């Protein structure tokens, strides 16, 4: 069982790794959308959730989200945005593009775990 973390911050990916380990998920990591698409090519069947930052160099999170949600092999993978972008219009934009959940930074590890479980259908909404 795998989670894909897409964030240009290695520290954020390390924090997410801690949460994934608690939940006994393997974590795949990408520092931008292009790298994440490469990872999806050979791992899509095993990935249960994508945690996605918005502002990244190269392919940003929004563009990556649109690509994922238009690809027949990836579009059913739930995506939670994990980002500093908190403006309502951006939240709406991401949800309309297919993100199923949205979490703003900063976040505690407890909140992250709770939200991951919600995304996976294993927690309270």
């Amino acid at each position, binding site marked *: 069982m795998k989670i894909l973390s897409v964030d240009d*911050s*290695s*520290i*954020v990916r390390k924090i997410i790794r801690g949460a994934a380990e608690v939940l006994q998920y393997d974590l795949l990591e990408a520092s931008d959308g292009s790298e994440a698409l490469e990872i999806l090519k050979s791992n899509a069947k095993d990935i249960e959730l994508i945690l996605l930052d918005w502002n990244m160099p190269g392919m940003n999170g929004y563009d990556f989200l649109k690509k994922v949600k238009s690809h027949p092999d990836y579009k059913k993978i739930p995506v939670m945005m994990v980002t500093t972008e908190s403006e309502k219009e951006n939240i709406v934009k991401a949800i309309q593009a297919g993100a199923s959940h949205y979490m703003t930074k900063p*976040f505690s590890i407890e909140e992250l775990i709770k939200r991951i479980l919600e995304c996976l259908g294993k927690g309270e909404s």
Partner: protein
Amino acid sequence: MLSDNYTDLLKYFSIAIEEVVHTMAGFEISASKDPSFFLRDDSPRISGLMLLPSSKNAILSITVSLESASILVSYMTGIPVDELKEEDLYDGVIELVNMIAGRAKSLLIDTTHSFGLTAPFAIYGRDYELVLKKNVSNLSKKYVSGDLEIGFGIFFM
């Protein structure tokens, strides 16, 4: 002399930095009575910076000693201090300034202040100071929690 507007701005950034440090690392920080922005000694330090484009552009900065950065990043990630690499510390400080800017921006949504977010970056070295030209408006504070010191500043261009 800063207008009341900018003093008000400092209030929101103060909330943001306190929230971010507490949420991510678990530290309750408070403004130091020491009015100096600069850290106590000349030990190696890391400054995380972000340009805030706005009607009055500004640069947001947080500066911590290497030791403080290690403590913060260790608490953020759960990785013991002695297992952290230097790039973890730079990235940690960069991410903190990113979150502080993002949180402040959301707190300021219903006010007259607004700014954009840009790619944060860090500088690292020993015994450097941020030197401003005369009459550049700035808001600066030092935050502390035990031995932890965070120099915080917003410098208006």
